[in-house]
């Protein structure tokens, strides 16, 4: 177990290394010069060149990469060229917003989806099943920006019951952003929970469980439930990862200063250090969550060996 985790973490490091290389190269291929962007438009070419020197952008790429990567090991992720500050504190400052959206979305999404999916899977062909299938299909067809805009319009502008602005940290500020994400997440997971449940229920061992005189509700919610949850956990993990890495659209529409939003900004301002670090942080979250998911799944299902 410990060995497995260590090995996985090492693998994660390798992935992160490649991500850092890709991110590093990507931002540098981009047209646009951070030095020029840091200075007013009126700056002369000499001033731009001086700024490049100051930022170390005149050095050859490998050297720049070396500086960057060694910095990381010292806890220095670089200095943002648009914020004139170290990158990491800014990211950490923005993270709570994103984390709240991500956890809220995935938590409520799973809650709804599991309830609906399990009930639907256990009642195949009944109206509740039809509803679940329909909900899943519709939910997966809604474009997030559109849904978000629609929700703002309905709840924020027409009904005025929820704030349309997202920068407060009160609970109500998160309702709409989370709701937006929940629809999509719940739709996807409902589908998985439902089919997981349905196929589990047709397994021999469930018939065997009934043959032991176990109550239907217990079979559904205890014995079949656990099997059906394995793909659900995996999908929930993927969703959590991608939301943690930046719910770009949600954050944009609701003006929430999370890291997805930050990334968009950073890309636009060619804030090299910021983009690199954000991609790295995203990759870290995702690989880390994958590890957690695998550990949870291994706990649920002993067949998934950790080796």
């Amino acid at each position: 177990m410990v060995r497995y985790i260590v090995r996985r973490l090492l693998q994660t490091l390798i992935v992160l290394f490649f991500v850092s290389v890709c991110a590093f190269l990507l931002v540098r291929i981009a047209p646009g010069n951070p030095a020029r962007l840091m200075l007013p438009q009126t700056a002369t070419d000499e001033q731009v060149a001086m700024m490049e020197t100051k930022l170390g952008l005149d050095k050859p790429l490998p050297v720049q990469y070396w500086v960057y990567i060694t910095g990381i090991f010292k806890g220095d992720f670089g200095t943002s060229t648009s914020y004139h500050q170290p990158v990491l504190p800014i990211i950490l400052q923005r993270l709570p917003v994103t984390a709240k959206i991500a956890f809220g979305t995935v938590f409520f999404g799973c809650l709804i989806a599991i309830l609906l999916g399990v009930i639907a899977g256990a009642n195949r062909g009944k109206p509740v099943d039809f509803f679940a299938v329909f909900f899943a299909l519709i939910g997966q067809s809604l474009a997030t920006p559109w849904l978000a805009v629609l929700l703002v319009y309905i709840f924020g502008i027409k009904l005025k019951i929820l704030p349309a602005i997202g920068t407060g940290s009160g609970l109500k500020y998160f309702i709409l952003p989370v709701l937006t994400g929940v629809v999509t997440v719940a739709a996807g997971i409902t589908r998985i929970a439902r089919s997981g449940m349905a196929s589990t229920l047709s397994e021999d061992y469930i018939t065997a469980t009934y043959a032991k005189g176990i109550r239907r509700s217990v079979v559904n919610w205890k014995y079949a439930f656990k099997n059906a949850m394995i793909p659900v956990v995996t999908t929930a993990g993927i969703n959590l990862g991608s939301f943690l890495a930046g719910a770009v659209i949600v954050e944009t529409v609701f003006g929430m200063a999370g890291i997805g939003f930050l990334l968009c900004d950073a890309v636009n301002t060619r804030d090299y250090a910021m983009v690199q670090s954000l991609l790295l942080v995203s990759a870290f979250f995702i690989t880390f969550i994958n590890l957690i998911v695998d550990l949870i799944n291994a706990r649920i299902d002993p067949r998934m060996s950790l080796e």
Partner: protein
Amino acid sequence: SGPAAGAAQGTAPAGGESAHSKTFNIVTSDSLVQLDPHNITTPADEYVMKMSYDSLLDTDHKGKFVGNLATSWEFNTDATELTFHLRQGVKFLNGEPWNADVAVYNFQRLISHKDDFAVAINYFSPLVGAEKIDDYTAKMIFDNPYPFALNYLHQFVMIPMEANKEMGDQMFTDMKQIGTGPWIFDEWVSGQYAHFKKNPDYWDKDEYNSYFDDGYIHFVSEPSSAAGAQISGDADAYISFGGINSDVVPLYKGTEDKIQVVMNDMNMYADLRMGFPEGSPLNDEKVREAIDLAIDRQSIADQIFQGGGVPLSILVPGDVGYDSTMAPYEYNPDKAKELLAQSSYQGQELTFLGSSAFLKSQDSMEAITSMLQDVGFKINLNVEDLATFNNEMAMGKWDLMYATNQCINGDPFLYFNSRFVTDFMHSNFKNDELIGLVKKFNVEPDAAVREDLAKQISKWNKDFHGPALALANVKGIYAVTKGTTGINLYPDGYESLTHISWDPSLAK
């Protein structure tokens, strides 16, 4: 005191029964990006800094100046030296006194950053030295006559010397803002909000003593979200550099009893700039004139800029050198077609560059493209994000560019100089006659003569049909919840929140 508490208090009294909350909440589409008070790069940087710091003098952005940390000032005769007489008895938050040493220290700091601070590069490049004359008198020294210095001093705030020497620039990134202003900078969460507390020892308490004890400036880039926040009662004002997006105005329908949407006439306008890369068809006057004639400015002003009006030239009312007798721009697509037919234009594709970061740029550019296509131009529309835009601009490979323009304090110095002399846009436009005029204008200390020179320059530009064509005036829109006072959007696009307060008599 977290933002939650503040925001919650902000909403509670929206009904108006109880007294208004003692916490203000302002939403803005601008974003604060950094905290070094001398390195102001965005509009938000400026007004956030001015909440907690003071400049030497302030302005009404129409050419009038009032003392702040300086009580009076004077130029020497050839406008190469500017002497300030400083206010006495002012202290920084850390107890450090304000005096000439501090002022000189500030001047020196600006000089030492003359190649990387935007304020220094833009406005104070002629500044070469500073001198203390006595404890409360200090002097700026320019390398050549610089009569415009006053116009930009409001963007230059004073920081404490000892504190900065002791802590270095780290003090800003650590959010230790030690100023003299009416507000104490308390906290900044990047992309979300900045929090201020009232400065109980503000030196000008008698003049300005805010109703609010503390407050937040929320940075919300999404216009409808920001407007929504105000409509739902979470914010006392919604304001943005150059005005908020006119598209959200309809959202305020039905809230007239609580919220006032202010629409100011501005001296900010959209303009079309011409680039002259090698062999450019724009070198042909007929082509330039065709472009000029092809654009239906009135439509753009009415339909896209909410009736902002059409300027007569690159100088607008309130600007030095504005000439109200000038004939308006003409719209005549038929004539444009004719001219184009006669011209040397061979159907080359013209690259029309712009940045989506500018107000209404997308719609305007699409409209202009359409108009130009109608008279027979081939246009390659290129709307880029700011970074790519800057890059493409610097490469000089563009024929037309969309931008907005404003003269700070109504003074066209920066505009003329950077556009026609230093050509920061890499338009490759060089005209000795025009450059001569501008150079004269730049060093002319006599206001009346300058006025006349400015008129000549704008007329020259208009007759030449380039290199800048004014398009339409921006409407300066912002929204304040009734009762909120001290919020300003100046004609040149700058906003000020420093003197925010609450007047219950205005609320009902």
